[in-house]
């Protein structure tokens, strides 16, 4: 299967950066987890991810902020002209990932722009991922959704996925009881 460049201008990306980071460092008392510096340049993971997605050509990025949202809003305050929208979760911590995701979808719908696909990516998951290639795979598969998987079984907090011969997901098992050559480990946060 050869690769060809695809137009991602009708793809919107939802990044949920509103969670209260109870499992994290003391520093996150004042900085959202997605804004802590990482890598050689010590830039926020959210900034790395947004730039990566914009470079791939996605049409819109919606960041749902919640906990310490002013820090995120200030950092990206002039990024709207590049297609980045900051959405403040008015319910604070009262809604879970599903509610925040729905909030972002409603925002996209009400913006008047038409998007064919939506991608969800957790800002605190570092994935070496070619977004163009993922999108091509998703479109050509004819599936309603696509999930990104890793073969790295050493990764913590991951479940197992049973994949059929046609490349479609059969089941998820977070208890990791399933074992076979077709079992892949997955991160719960990357979708296309």
């Amino acid at each position, binding site marked *: *299967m*050869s*690769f060809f*460049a695809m137009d991602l201008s009708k793809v*919107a990306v939802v990044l949920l950066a509103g969670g209260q980071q109870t*499992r*994290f*460092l003391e520093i996150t008392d004042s900085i959202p*987890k997605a804004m*802590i510096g*990482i*890598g*050689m340049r010590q830039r926020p*993971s959210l900034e*790395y991810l947004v*730039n990566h997605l914009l470079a*791939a050509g996605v049409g819109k990025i919606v960041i749902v902020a919640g906990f310490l949202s002013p820090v995120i809003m200030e950092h990206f305050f002039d990024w709207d002209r590049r297609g980045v929208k900051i959405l403040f979760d008015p319910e604070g911590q*009262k809604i*879970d*990932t*599903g*509610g925040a*995701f*729905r909030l972002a*979808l409603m925002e*996209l*719908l009400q913006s008047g722009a038409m*998007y*064919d*696909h939506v*991608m969800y990516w*957790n800002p*605190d*998951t*570092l*994935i*070496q*991922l*070619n977004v*163009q*290639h*993922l999108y091509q*795979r998703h479109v050509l*598969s004819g*599936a*309603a*959704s*696509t*999930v*990104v*998987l*890793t*073969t790295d079984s050493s990764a913590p*907090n991951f479940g197992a996925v049973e994949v059929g011969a046609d490349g*479609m*997901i059969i089941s*998820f098992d977070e208890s990791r009881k399933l074992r076979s050559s077709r079992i892949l480990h997955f*991160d719960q*946060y990357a979708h*296309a």
Partner: protein
Amino acid sequence: MNFRTVLDLLTTGDFKIRQSFCLFKDVLPALVNLRMAAFVTHGVFLEFGTAKAYRFLQAHPELVEKAFGLSSFPRRRDYGSN
């Protein structure tokens, strides 16, 4: 995800009236039923949402550059993976 498919899913039935639900525990089964494809990446894949994982990432900053250093075009031609 196909925009309309997931929007319809989250704005009808049980999801419509619920304020709080988990995207993965609650929504994933419905998406699997609607056909969900797998996309495999063989590269960096690290969830650093814990202090321990973050410290590991700080000790290996090159992983960040590696993860985001990919060009917009694939280096491998195998279908369905990076």
